[in-house]
């Protein structure tokens, strides 16, 4: 269907991206509308948590995006280092702020869920803590792009950092889980896994799909911007040289 290899060419990518973007936007808007309707009107309040369970419909997709975006970032970084495909580093760069934003949203909505359920805005719950650390990883990644002026150096440094971070994410997750089981206060309500009622699962999945669609739309916009910024930079340099 799509010749992926040719998409690595910036010019071809831009034509493709501009054609896909409106469709992606429409699909995302539809998914979001359906998802919001399902999660606010259709889904029943949880028998234990009441209506606070609805926070899950934005919290879990945000957390999903936080992890998903980091994976995309690391994948793109690896591709950039290995195959030197021109768009990879820019993809990672364009994705990072999206991931950081959703990480922050996951933390904030988590706090809003925690307050009525646990009686406190923040607990050093394994998940919350891991997500907080993930947020720092995003900040570091974005900071290194900021700190280095030269494009190639910035791109490769950021890529190495993204990969080092990616190797570390499971280790951090594992250690935080371990740490947490040692310090876990026994009263904390378990929110995870298969205990979620099926009537809550459909809206959740629709919302996850909607968030993923939103990610694609935003990534296409941001990536085009990065590509154009690179072109502008090259043009400027060519003109400065005379």
């Amino acid at each position, binding site marked *: 269907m799509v010749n992926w290899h040719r998409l690595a060419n910036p010019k071809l990518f831009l034509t493709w991206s501009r054609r896909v973007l409106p469709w992606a936007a429409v699909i995302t808007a539809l998914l979001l509308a359906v998802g919001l309707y399902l999660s606010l009107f259709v889904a029943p309040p949880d028998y234990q948590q009441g209506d606070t369970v609805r926070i899950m419909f934005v*919290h879990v997709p*945000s957390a999903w995006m936080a992890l998903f975006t980091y994976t995309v970032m690391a994948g793109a970084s690896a591709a950039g280092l290995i195959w030197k495909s021109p768009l990879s580093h820019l993809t990672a760069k364009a994705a990072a702020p999206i991931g950081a934003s959703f990480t922050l949203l996951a933390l904030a909505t988590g706090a809003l869920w925690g307050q009525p359920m646990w009686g406190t805005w923040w607990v050093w719950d394994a998940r919350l803590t891991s997500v907080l650390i993930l947020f720092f990883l995003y900040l570091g990644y974005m900071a290194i792009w900021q700190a280095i002026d030269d494009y190639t150096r910035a791109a490769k440094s950021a890529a190495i950092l993204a990969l080092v971070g990616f190797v570390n994410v499971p280790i951090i997750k594992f250690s935080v889980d371990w740490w947490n089981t040692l310090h876990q206060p026994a009263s904390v309500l378990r929110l995870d896994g298969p205990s979620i009622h099926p009537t809550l699962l459909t809206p959740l999945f629709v919302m996850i799909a909607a968030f993923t669609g939103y990610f694609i739309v935003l990534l296409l916009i941001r990536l085009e911007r990065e590509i154009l910024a690179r072109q502008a930079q090259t043009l400027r340099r060519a003109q400065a040289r*005379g």
Partner: protein
Amino acid sequence: MESAVQFLDMGGYALFVWPAFIMVAIVMTALLIWSWRDLRRERQTLELLAERRGSGETAGTGNDA
């Protein structure tokens, strides 16, 4: 009317449910608007640069970029 109030009340958890949704909505909208505005600005810059390049070559003037 009553059902609307009931809906907004969120079983007493309105103060937690709505801020969560609103926060997500604000951040997602803001990100979209920012990115889109940046893209439009970049498109304009690029057009300007291309234009200047064209005229700059015929006029033979150096550009300050």
